[in-house]
């Protein structure tokens, strides 16, 4: 392994991770400095609703495609979302396995599994990019960051597929994968990709508000047709 690859897999990642945590910490402190509104109303809604069950419902929302009309009606998009995020998770795990647990990749099935998931996510990423470019509604709401983040994630996932076998005789894909990983760690806190940091936060507040008002957990009667 070249010195450059070793640096990219270890020191560079550690520095980038430290930077990401630092910025995230600052970000969370920044968010928490906004005042939390005090709730004075007595709860409304069915007596069996509670704020805690509503918050749980709100957090679990992402795994309940039946809970929202949008995910019910756009189930294919929901599936794309699942595949894409599984792929990203697999690529992140890969970025830790290669430097800290390369033995795992000696199992062929582990490599194939990671490659399968990241490849599927890469294809989905291309589809999502195409939708963002082709659909006028998506174009209207997209920022340069939206295109860039998605495009770069597709490239990163592509290199994750190539890097998964951890074949140090072909350093190119590994180097590209780790340099991109480091770039993401630094870039993510400033981009939309940091949404996973906000998800628990926004959904907690929405769950709390709507739970207090008896709207969450959502009760829905099936459609007649």
């Amino acid at each position, binding site marked *: 392994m070249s010195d450059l690859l070793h640096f990219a897999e270890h020191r560079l990642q550690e520095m980038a991770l430290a930077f990401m945590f630092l910025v995230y910490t600052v970000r969370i402190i920044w968010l928490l400095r906004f*005042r939390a509104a005090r709730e004075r109303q007595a709860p*409304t809604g069915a007596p069996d609703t509670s704020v805690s069950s509503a918050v749980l419902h709100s957090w679990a929302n992402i795994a309940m495609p039946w809970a929202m009309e949008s995910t019910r009606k756009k189930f294919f*998009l929901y599936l794309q979302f699942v595949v894409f995020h599984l792929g990203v998770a697999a690529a992140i795990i890969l970025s830790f396995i290669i430097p800290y647990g390369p033995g795992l990749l000696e199992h062929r099935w582990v490599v194939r599994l990671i490659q399968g998931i990241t490849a599927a996510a890469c294809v989905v990423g291309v589809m999502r990019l195409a939708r963002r470019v082709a659909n006028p509604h998506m174009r209207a709401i997209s920022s340069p960051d939206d295109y860039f983040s998605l495009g770069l994630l597709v490239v990163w996932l592509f290199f994750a597929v190539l890097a998964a076998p951890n074949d140090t005789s072909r350093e190119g894909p590994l180097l590209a994968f780790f340099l991109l990983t480091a770039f993401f760690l630094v870039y993510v806190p400033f981009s939309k990709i940091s949404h996973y940091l*906000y998800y628990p936060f926004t959904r907690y507040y929405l769950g709390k508000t709507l739970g207090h*008002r008896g709207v969450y957990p959502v009760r829905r009667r099936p459609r007649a047709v």
Partner: protein
Amino acid sequence: MSKRKEQSHRVKVVLQRLREKMNRQMAGSLVACVHCGMCTDSCHYVLANPDDPTYAPAYKADKIRKLFKRHLDWTGRVFPWWVKAEGIYSDEDLEELKDTVFGKCTNCRRCSLNCPMGVDMATFNRMARGLLVSVGIMPEGVAVVSKDQWEIGNQMGVLKEDYLETLEWMSEELRDELGDPQFTIPVDRTDCEIVYAINPREVKYDPRTIADAAKIFYLTGENWTMPSDCWDMTNFGLFSGDDELGGAVARRLYEKVIELRGKKLVMSECGHGYRSTRCEAPNWAQFDVPFEMESSVITMLRYISEGRIRVDKTRNTEPVTFHDSCNNARSCGMFEEPRELLKLVVTDFREMYPNRAENFCCTGGGGAMSMSEYTPRRLKSARIKAEQLRATGAKIVATSCHNCVDGLTDLIRHYELDMEVTQLVNLVANAVIVEKKVAVPAAGPPKPAPLAGKTILVADDEPDQVAWLSTLFADHGAKVVEACDGDQALELARTHKPDLLTLDLAMPGKSAGEVFELIRREPQLADLKVCVISGRPELRKTIYDRSVKPPEGYLDKPVTEERVLRSVRKVLELAHDDGK
């Protein structure tokens, strides 16, 4: 070197208020959007305008988000263009924002419930409205209504004497109906179980709902009262985003209930009023409310389930569907109670799809009915609701909200649906069994026709409507004169000196507003009473914005014989003459 753009004074104030108003929940919603577009199709504006991406919730939200990112979020300052963080500078920028936050969103919260990230667009859209209102940038109707609520104490500028007179009038109507000559709507009684607060629309356009509620309270033997002032349970602060107005309005009502030592505040059917008074206003007013608050829907349901009133559902046999008000369903969790109640009082209840928290807005929400400049947009977006209604095959759509009554009535007319709008209280009152104390009338001379001796000028450009009203009035003893446009109405008013003019608002020739003002300013016509009968609620302001005495009566089309006669008798002050 390029010169830094200067911010206008109003922009500076808006940005200062943005900093003050921002809370953690809103900041979360403003940073969390990933522009995934999942919310797009949940908005009725988008569905009705599929080729216009500027209606997409995320697009509209970005108009507000860009300010937050540019001015409050330090990540947006690093590369503003990259993340669509943009500043605003001029009053024109604020006007553009107004068009989005007031004219393209009813704050219905449907997108919020369909966002995987939990972005609550409706909440920060309301906040943005409030920022603009604080610098005087708002639709004219919002300014007028807010002023009335600040100054007169209710949204429709109803004067105390008119309110009390309406209660007295409804008491008289009920004396006969209930067979109880002692009946009166209690006002300002202390230590009651229930203090009942209403929407001013009931006084102005729909007093029957007050009578229906009073009838139900009477039949249960409830210990209840209405306040003589501070009786408006609606709150325009919810729509204008003005927390100060919202807090002040609600505080008046809370303090009134405390003054009367009422145990519970029951609110008539009004989605935004219920949401404001029950849920949001304790926060706006920073007031810990020491009594219970309840919607009259829940009260009526309890009365029936406790056997305090008996109902006969076979009196309501037309097919009925239910429209969930956004505020009741998506912001207060009230969707099962109205259904339970309806199933007790109608024989043919038909669900509308989607429903409950997924229902579509009536399109009159968020104060849209007061913003006449956006009426064409509103009616276009109403196509979605019209399709929902039509699919039910129902003849009656019941709803628990006065705003929805107006919004639905308007779209039903626009899309020519064969349907009527009603409230649950009307259906319950119709189904309730009255064990009447029958007073045997003493034989006497036959009563004269109720409108005998009166001359009524009917001004309307629809021949069917003219014929219908003329026949109705003539059958009840009136002499009728007919006009089909504004100029003719004015001419006939001068020559015939009628007692009453029924005035349509959309006629050819001189506009109804002009005719009305000329009549009011002409001393020879000083005694002429005017009752507007119109199917165009957005034209109300053409009458009410004039600096002359308002019309004595107002009826929304479609009208029934009963409503027209009751209103005309009231306007002519004949309501008490014949004991009806």
